[in-house]
């Protein structure tokens, strides 16, 4: 075993139960500033999704009296937009819709992608109906991924009409092949490991082996990709809303706020689009950081 690479003496350290896993996680987190930052951002974004629309100083969907396009001040921390709506209140209210879309669509994509990934990975190379199923799933995924993501999302929403449900459906649909591939890749590796054959010797049926024995061991990669996918979905939602194909105005949503502010950027009212985009970027960064951290934490190679 030590033949190909100099390696450490294999010392199986005692690691019992959940408590140690939790302690491992804490000590891992303590050593990584980026991961901590990511967790903080994610927590904050989730908090705002729940409370954001209620804690802002001004209403989020109605114009205030007075001059529009006020620059940032003590009264309006991020200024006001062309309809004289308070940008700060709207920016912190936006996670409600953006995160709902991202979380729901990612959850659907995860469930669908993992299930299909297990089937296509485990039964690929077999025979009969399961093999056909597996092949069919893969071909379908190939074809869906032949379309550039944003264009396909745009088209889905374009044909079905704008609206939150349609954005969720589009994102879920687009992300299924992604989780499918990740899961399938992991399943293809796990299925070659001898414990699968051992389960056959133990009299398990193929479906039971696939979902009871193989799937739990193939979940790490798709789990680690949940967080970045949420970030990516937020990005896509804002992009769709930016061109008017996503969340309709005046619902506070980062992409549509940037769209509202876009013309003002060329005439010098920089705060209109800058702040929503900056917050959007920070939130996505947070989800990416959490994803990277989890990937590293869950990767057995990095353990010790």
């Amino acid at each position, binding site marked *: *075993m*030590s*033949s*190909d*690479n*100099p*390696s*450490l*003496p*294999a*010392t199986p350290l005692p690691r019992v139960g959940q408590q140690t896993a939790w302690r491992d996680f804490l000590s891992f987190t303590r*050593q990584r500033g980026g991961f901590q930052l990511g967790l903080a951002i994610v927590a904050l974004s989730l908090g705002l999704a729940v409370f954001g629309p209620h804690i802002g100083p001004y209403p989020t969907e109605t114009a205030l009296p007075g001059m529009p396009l006020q620059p940032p001040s003590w009264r309006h921390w991020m200024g006001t937009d062309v309809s004289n709506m308070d940008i700060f209140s709207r920016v912190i209210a936006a996670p409600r819709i953006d995160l709902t879309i991202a979380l729901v669509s990612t959850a659907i994509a995860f469930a669908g992608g993992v299930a299909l990934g297990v089937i296509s990975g485990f039964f690929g190379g077999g025979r009969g109906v399961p093999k056909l199923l597996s092949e069919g799933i893969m071909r379908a995924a190939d074809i869906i991924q032949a379309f550039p993501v944003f264009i396909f999302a745009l088209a889905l929403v374009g044909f079905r009409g704008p609206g939150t449900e349609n954005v969720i459906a589009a994102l879920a649909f687009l992300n299924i092949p992604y989780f499918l591939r990740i899961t399938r890749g992991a399943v293809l590796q796990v299925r070659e490991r001898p414990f699968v054959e051992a389960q056959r010797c133990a009299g398990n049926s193929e479906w039971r082996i696939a979902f009871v024995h193989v799937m739990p061991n193939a979940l790490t990669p798709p789990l680690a990709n949940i967080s970045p996918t949420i970030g990516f979905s937020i990005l896509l939602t804002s992009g769709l809303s930016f061109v008017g194909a996503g969340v309709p105005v005046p619902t506070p949503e980062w992409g549509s706020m940037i769209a509202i502010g876009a013309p003002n950027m060329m005439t010098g009212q920089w705060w209109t689009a800058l702040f929503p985009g900056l917050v959007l970027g920070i939130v996505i960064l947070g989800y990416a950081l959490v994803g990277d951290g989890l990937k590293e934490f869950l990767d057995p190679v990095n353990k*010790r």
Partner: protein
Amino acid sequence: MAPILELRELSVSYETQGGARAVLSKLSLDVSAGEALGIVGESGSGKTVLVRSILGLLDPPFRTDHGTVVFEGRDLRQLDEQSFRQLRGGSIALTTPEPRKHLNPLISIGRQIVNVLRAHQTLAEQAARTRTIELLRAVGIPDPERRLAAYPHELSGGMCQRVIIAMALAHQTKLLLVDEPTAGLDVTISRQILDLMHELAVSHGTALMLVSRDLGVVAHYCRRVAVMYDGRIVEDAPVEAFFAGPAHPYSRQLLRAAAASRGKRGAEKRVDALAEPARTGCPFRPRCPVAVAACATAVPALQQVAAGRRARCLRAEALLRQELAA
């Protein structure tokens, strides 16, 4: 004969998050010119790290903390990168286990050998090609002219090992480090490879340092054997004397384990063969059937126990006497 390689108190550690862990502990060893030395050890004994540290190939998290590696009078650890590079693949060469993984998969084997030749001497392309064909023929690859264009995936494991040997012996190699020569090869093929390696080494006057977990290989292809346990040499003896009766209890366990028949266990104390090395005292103590209280106090020194034999055990002489009596 004067040694060409002298390791003195070589210490290598592995950096982990929980602090450094010793992989080699003050390891001292000589290899004489033209001799065949076998290094035996199990996983984690540090034998592969030993090979890599001689060639200066250890990257972080491995770190050489201490000691000297003197080759032909020069301390390799003080050598600049350029001179060391000339030495690698020149005077000191390496053969690896799982040869196919160690060849560049996207370049033809002819080109790879030519690259090695030209890294060490100024050689025109045509001359390098001619020399490559000679080398391939010398290592018994049939139809070498045609094989120049072959890629590693088109060759069997045995053929890839021959290519590696051809590269290793392309120059005036003084010392050939052979890492696990039989890993990943079938029985009949590995025997062919060992014969070839042995033959070439003898005809070139090359010293062999053969690292293996297989005691059979060492018994048949080496003159001297050094046993490693937990980063240390625990026994160093001529092959005949060693296999007739080892002086260290670990060597005795290894030998008994490798035998084709079970043998009698005798009245020996039952011990846990899987126990971890001890952190204080003699590291082998938890697995040792003949340990005494004194073994817990300090790591025993590697002492002369008979002519040309050293062992790191307080009870070595007692063991040897018993063995000789039996």
